[in-house]
């Protein structure tokens, strides 16, 4: 915590509590203890005091106790010598400020000083109130004054939208923008994103409300832009609104301060935007807002409080207007608002994919034939790659799509050209491990466009664009628009910003391709290095429980899901995107038996996830407590006792195996979520893992294997052979072309000197 901020907030709080005390004693003298106190049309008393302390304030006299409580929360201003974190003191002072501010505004309502008068203002929708002034009553509720507190009816309308996500959050703007133009742009940026905006405060007597009023910006409920008042104190209505949201929609009761504050931090995506100079009172009020988990973003130079704790991310961020990189106020406003969104962790929703051709999953399987082709990228005659990398939040601009190099207008019909698609992705929850997971989605995203066919990935990407799509106006930039929209809508939980650069200059494509390839290699190596010993979390996959109710896949870095579709990284990403979904982290915990792969955590999970059917799970054995299977397995591994080894049959192999059964008969034994020692369903890449039935002797136990596996995994299996110290190992394994019964298997193994013959008995 910055001592500077602490000092000023504590000083501001002390001053405000004293001011409130003075006002209260004056009011008590003039109006008496029993004068009723309330904000218009609310059932929540003075909401912040009610929420934070449980006090149901209805009369002036009751306010004394509240202020006494506020005074207790005050701390002395830090001395110059003392150097402590101050966070607790500052937050306490913030809370005291809120109580004092609400007290003052309540007294002002009694004196008819709230809602604040502002001649000429006409609100589009506002809190109805009984004016003490007969004239303004005639004018109606919306004329000649600002809004003051929000009533319960509006609270319900907006609160529900905040809670259900239709409204991403609210902004409390305090102060005055650099210029009227800037004020308007900031409001427009917020409105464009459907963010509710509350206006209050001033700088040297001039408020953003004045600025917007002068510019003819319509204010009021109907425009989601509500002017509270021109002093800082009226910001209290924003926190009253937040408190009441928790009371109404979070099921909290008055006095549940902790719960209300947590609720706001976790569910109400609000932030404070401080425009212009920040005085003591503003610091004090900001400290109050931080209690709610609402961060403060200032457009002036102030000390920042970056470490997180009370708020989700940073507490106080400074983004001086003059230093914002932008050509005009519009750009600056956009960046400032973007920053606010980032700091509060608001999720922006992108629903449409803005391209000139129809878009949807219905087009995923479309084929663009040579005759219909306008241009292709990749394939035989040109190079094409796609490369997704993680960037820092500050380094990229969300939604920016840049094409560097010529478009395809000069390329002949049915011609081809080089293209490199580089996607920069930034997000608070983004991890470099997710890069390949996200990168693989490009295929599906691009294929959704009508008239575009996407094949392959990485540097073997091949994209075809039909003449019809080109005629409809689909250009290179549209690839970027698709990716931007889809990454936001499908991966919003981990992606905050997406920027796309499309390169078409052959030189640049070549250069970047090299860079990309280095990264691909790095990622391959990273996958190879990602061992079970290197992590302390595995993931569950219960996706298949709909038909195999007691089956749980435990996915580790060295053992992918048996369907072959989910590896450890996929599960990790899936968990981050959908924390309540089918992939849950399993803390492996204490090792029970490292060889056979027993951990406390995996055993516990297997038991819970299988509803008690599986008691123990050996990750690396087929012989005891093997992993169960649903039915989606790519391969079945089965013990051949006569051969002292196992066979591996692929789903694609329909022939009879040495076990005397075909894949589909075996599937009945392997599936169903029941542990059957000796039979196991696996993903085919598990065969190449060093942990493949390592407890039982590992890969050299494989005595027979469907030829389709030998062929489709030739490279991977060769690596395994070399790892096992026998480059000819794969040739020693029989397949259905030479052996279809156990009687034929043994002589074949003898003839080919299969290592399993010399291994210890498998059981």
């Amino acid at each position, binding site marked *: 915590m910055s001592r500077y901020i602490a000092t000023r907030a504590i000083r501001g709080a002390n001053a405000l509590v004293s001011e409130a005390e003075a006002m209260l004693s004056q009011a008590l003298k003039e109006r008496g203890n029993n004068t009723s106190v309330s904000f218009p049309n609310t059932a929540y008393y003075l909401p912040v005091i009610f929420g934070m302390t449980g006090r149901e304030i209805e009369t002036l006299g009751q306010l004394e106790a509240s202020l006494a409580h506020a005074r207790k929360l005050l701390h002395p201003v830090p001395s110059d010598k003392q150097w402590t974190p101050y966070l607790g003191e500052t937050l306490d002072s913030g809370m005291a400020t809120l109580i004092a501010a609400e007290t003052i505004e309540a007294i002002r309502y009694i004196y008819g000083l709230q809602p604040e008068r502002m001649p000429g203002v006409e609100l589009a929708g506002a809190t109805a109130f009984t004016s003490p002034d007969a004239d303004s009553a005639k004018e109606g509720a919306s004329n000649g004054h600002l809004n003051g507190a929000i009533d319960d009816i509006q609270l*319900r309308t907006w609160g529900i939208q905040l809670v259900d996500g239709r409204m991403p959050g609210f902004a409390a703007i305090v102060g005055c923008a650099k210029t009227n133009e800037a004020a308007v742009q900031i409001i427009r940026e917020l409105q464009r994103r459907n963010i509710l905006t509350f206006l209050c405060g001033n700088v040297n007597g001039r408020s953003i409300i004045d600025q917007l009023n002068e510019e003819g910006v319509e204010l009021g409920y109907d425009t989601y832009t509500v002017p509270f008042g021109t002093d800082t104190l009226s910001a209290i209505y924003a926190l009253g609104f937040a408190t009441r949201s928790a009371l109404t929609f*979070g099921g909290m009761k008055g006095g549940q301060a902790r719960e209300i504050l947590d609720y706001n931090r976790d569910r109400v995506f609000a932030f404070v935007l401080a425009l212009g100079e920040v005085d003591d009172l503003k610091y004090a009020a900001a400290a109050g807002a931080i209690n709610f988990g609402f961060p403060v973003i200032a457009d002036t130079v102030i000390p920042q409080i970056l470490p997180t704790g009370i708020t989700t991310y940073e507490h106080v961020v400074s983004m001086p207007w003059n230093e914002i990189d932008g050509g005009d106020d519009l750009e600056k406003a956009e960046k400032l608002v973007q920053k606010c969104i980032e700091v509060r962790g608001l999720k922006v929703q992108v629903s449409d994919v803005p391209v000139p051709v129809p878009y949807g999953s219905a087009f995923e399987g479309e084929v663009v034939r040579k005759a219909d082709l306008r241009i292709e990228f990749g394939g035989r005659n040109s190079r094409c790659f796609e490369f997704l990398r993680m960037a820092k939040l500050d380094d990229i601009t969300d939604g920016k799509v840049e094409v560097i190099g010529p478009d395809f207008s000069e390329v002949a019909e049915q011609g081809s050209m080089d293209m490199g698609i580089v996607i920069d992705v930034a997000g608070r929850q983004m991890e470099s491990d997710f890069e390949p997971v996200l990168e693989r989605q490009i295929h599906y995203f691009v294929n959704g466009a009508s008239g575009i066919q996407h094949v392959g990935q990485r540097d073997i990407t091949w994209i075809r664009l039909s003449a019809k799509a080109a005629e409809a106006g689909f250009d290179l930039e549209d690839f970027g628009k698709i990716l931007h929209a889809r990454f936001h809508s499908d991966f919003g939980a981990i992606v905050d910003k997406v920027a796309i650069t499309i390169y078409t200059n052959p030189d640049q494509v070549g250069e970047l391709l090299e860079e990309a390839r280095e990264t691909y290699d790095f990622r391959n190596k990273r996958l190879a290095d990602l061992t079970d010993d290197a992590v302390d979390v595995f993931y569950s996959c219960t996706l298949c*429980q709909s038909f195999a109710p007691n089956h749980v896949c435990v996915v580790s870095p060295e053992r992918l899901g048996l369907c072959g579709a989910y590896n450890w990284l996929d599960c990790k990403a899936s968990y981050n995107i959908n924390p309540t979904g089918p992939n849950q982290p399993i803390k492996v915990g204490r090792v029970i038996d490292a060889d056979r792969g027993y951990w406390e955590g995996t055993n516990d999970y297997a038991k819970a996830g299988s*509803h008690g059917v599986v008691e123990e799970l050996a990750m690396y054995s087929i012989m005891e407590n093997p992993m169960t299977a649903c039915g989606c397995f790519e391969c079945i591994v089965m013990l051949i006792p006569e051969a002292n080894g196992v066979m591996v049959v692929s789903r694609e192999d329909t022939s009879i195996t040495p076990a005397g059964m075909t894949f589909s008969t075996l599937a009945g034994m392997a599936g169903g979520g029941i542990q059957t020692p000796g039979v196991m369903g696996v993903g085919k890449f598990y065969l190449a893992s060093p942990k493949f039935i390592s407890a039982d002797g590992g890969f050299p136990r494989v005595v027979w294997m469907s030829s389709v596996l030998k062929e489709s995994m030739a490279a991977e299996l060769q690596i395994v052979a070399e790892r096992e110290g026998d480059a000819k190992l794969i040739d020693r394994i029989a397949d259905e072309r030479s052996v279809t019964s156990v009687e034929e298997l043994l002589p074949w193994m003898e003839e080919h000197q299969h290592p399993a013959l010399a291994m210890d008995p498998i059981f």
Partner: protein
Amino acid sequence: MSIEIPKDKWPGAVQTVTLGATAEQGGTRTKVVTIGGEQTLPFMHFESETPNRPVIAMEMSSSRPGGWSQVLQDTWGDVLDDPAKWAQACEQAGAELIVLMFGLTDADDNPITPDFAVQTVKAVLEATGLPLVVLGPGQVDIDNAILVPIADATKGERLVLGLCEEGNYRTIVAAAMANDHLVLGRTPMDVNLAKQLNILMTDMGLPRDRIIMDPTTGALGYGIEYGYSVMERLRLAALQGDAMTQLPLMVNPGFESWKTKESKVGEGVPDAWGDWAERGVHWETVTAVSLIEAGADVVVLRHPDSLTRVKESIDELMAAEPV
């Protein structure tokens, strides 16, 4: 010979949920319904008492439903045109709970409005003292548009609002929380999806005693075995102590069975199908009784004869005589 009867002792129990609120409790209902609370599999009285009997709800619509079987139309007659009268007829038929379903349009084929929805709910609440379940037509926008004002207008009644699905639960849950109502969450025949929705709804702060889950079922002949097994599994998981499955189950055998060809079509069907009207009632009854055996806490029916028959079965199943 003495035999030790194997008895299950489960660590978990189903949440008890009360639907409806009397005047003292902040509503206007003359009767409330309490479901859940089981500590064993259905009707295992020799292991533990069954605190609340399964409840039979009757389904009615905001206006004469299009596409209802002629058998049902003939049975109910003119009340189908008047929600208030229909609700009373349901109560007279022996319903313990009313399920009011909104269609997309009103009787004149105009799209329903929030005002129409609120008036209809109020009319039904006035016509009957039974607790009420209110279900939107199932389109997120329209559900939200009508359920929020209905929730506001009936604060404190402990209505059950639905359907909450993964895509729209937030608005309905928020509306329920703000007005002391309950919600019905529906997931498509999958234990884990049911659990996930419950997690999401309770994450919003909705207490567990205000959630009922509809795991979806199929009618006899049309996938009942999926619903049946999902319900058995949910109940087992609940008893095993998995908190997010410990919510009472409400299923709709009436809706499911009366949309089958067996119940809907009377002519041009095989002779082996037998009498149309009786077949329709058998279809609904057999579906409902089977689902009660699987753990249903509420079954929603459409035909009054089915109600009588299912009620008789529940009476028998609840008879906890010593064995």
